[in-house]
């Protein structure tokens, strides 16, 4: 284990997992409350086009994917406001088009394309020093903003009218959530891949919701579960020599399934105790 921690790529991957785990899981609370899972999935998939543009132009794929995804988030927001199309239709069209564009652009490069698999399913070997610096800086900035504006973001996720009545500008904060979410998802792509990254938004919070009895405990447990799943999955993927993103998601879904079974059994026992005996 100590030997493992001495490997530079593993150190970078562990730091990335620690930072991304808490960021994505915390954003996941707002995503599930506001029912934005499809938006998250769509933006993450479409980010492949941004990464492909970076690869083709020899610019940083991470930065180009960040810019592309944030612009896409703004475009989705604008179309939702200005067109009569449903949000699902807008995201569905943009996400498939973005992903298709990414595959076509990567295919334009000659020869075998190992990057494609890395972007699709995550590759911890691909996290470079400068990528890690960007991940840490942006994650801290987004987390600081979320913590500072937690009340406004929660209120908006609960009810738009109520947020407006409490003095929150719903349009401004909605756009900010979209952009922050797009940014956080792209940061997670190096570890999880575009296909699987949104799992960390959904799985930890869904697990914590099964037993949390307040928003405060939900927040704490979501972060704890996300960190455990990310670190546990990463280490397991190293020992099993399997793709990191896929193993992290499988660890997460196993934790969710076990919690769900335990929660259901406990609820059944409680109902039995409460029901009158004949």
């Amino acid at each position, binding site marked *: 284990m100590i030997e493992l921690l001495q490997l530079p790529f593993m150190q970078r991957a562990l730091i990335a997992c620690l930072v991304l785990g808490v960021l994505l899981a915390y954003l996941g609370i707002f995503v599930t409350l506001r029912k934005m899972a499809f938006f998250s999935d769509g933006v993450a998939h479409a980010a492949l086009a941004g990464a492909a543009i970076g690869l083709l132009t020899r610019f940083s794929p991470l930065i180009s994917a960040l810019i592309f995804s944030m612009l896409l988030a703004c475009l989705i927001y604008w179309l939702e406001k200005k067109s009569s199309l449903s949000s699902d239709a807008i995201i569905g069209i943009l996400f498939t088009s973005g992903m298709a564009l990414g595959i076509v652009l990567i295919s334009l490069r000659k020869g075998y394309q190992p990057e494609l698999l890395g972007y699709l399913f995550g590759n911890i070997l691909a996290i470079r020093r400068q990528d890690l610096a960007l991940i840490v800086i942006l994650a801290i900035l987004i987390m600081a903003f979320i913590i500072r504006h937690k*009340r406004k973001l929660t209120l908006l996720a*609960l009810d738009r009218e*109520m947020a407006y009545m409490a003095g929150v500008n719903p349009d401004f904060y909605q756009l900010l959530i979209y952009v922050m979410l797009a940014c956080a998802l792209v940061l997670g792509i190096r570890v999880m891949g575009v296909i699987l990254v949104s799992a960390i938004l959904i799985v930890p919070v869904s697990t914590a919701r099964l037993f949390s*009895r*307040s*928003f*405060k405990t939900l927040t704490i447990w979501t972060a704890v579960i996300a960190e455990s799943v990310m670190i546990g999955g990463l280490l397991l993927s190293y020992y099993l020599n399997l793709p990191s993103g896929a193993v992290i998601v499988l660890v997460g879904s196993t934790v969710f399934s076990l919690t769900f079974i335990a929660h259901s059994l406990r609820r059944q026992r409680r109902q039995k105790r409460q029901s009158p005996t004949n």
Partner: protein
Amino acid sequence: MPPVLEVKDLTVRFAGCTALEGVSFTIEKNAIIAVIGPNGSGKTTLLKAILGLVPFQGEIRLFSKPLRQVLPQVGYVPQRFAFDSTFPLTVEEFINLTCRTPEKLPLGGVLDEVGMKGFKGKLIGELSGGQLQRVLLAHALVHRPRILFLDEATSGIDIEGLSDFYSTIQRLNREHGVTVMMVSHEISMVYKFTDRIICLNRDLISHGETRTALTREVLKKLYGDSADLRNHSHD
């Protein structure tokens, strides 16, 4: 004394459809006003226009100012609060979300006022319809608003709870001087508990003191021939 609320020539249109046309009225301080009318008559639209939640033509002034400037003095209880009931949020956490400062609000008093003392730690999703409406009322009252808007706030409350809810509103109005404007379908409760009424059917049918403005003719105009005042005289 200037009126609390002035509405002049208010018109609201949605995609070519007119929801309200040329509505004008004023509301005086400390009154309880009911907005009545059949389904689709523009009652909720009127409230939403006053609160700036829908675009409108005309002029609306609250405490002689545009709404944005006086928003902290306004409380609002929506018709329904459609949130994910499995989300773990306690009553205390929910009410504190409206807090504009980092300090927590003293909730005991406001929960007691709406008859929800002891419910601070309960999950919002585990409350009954009536209890949730009372929590929404507490949520709207926590900043001690000068005017309170209720949009069919009694829709989830059973018949036994109705009178209690209206009594609470009346007490808040009498003891704290809160002006109340409510959209309601319960004509008998309106007759018993409100001072003034606004009768709407896309345009203003009548408005004035409840006992004089709520006539058989007005009710027939609003709800058709089957409506009469028999149910309203049991106070």
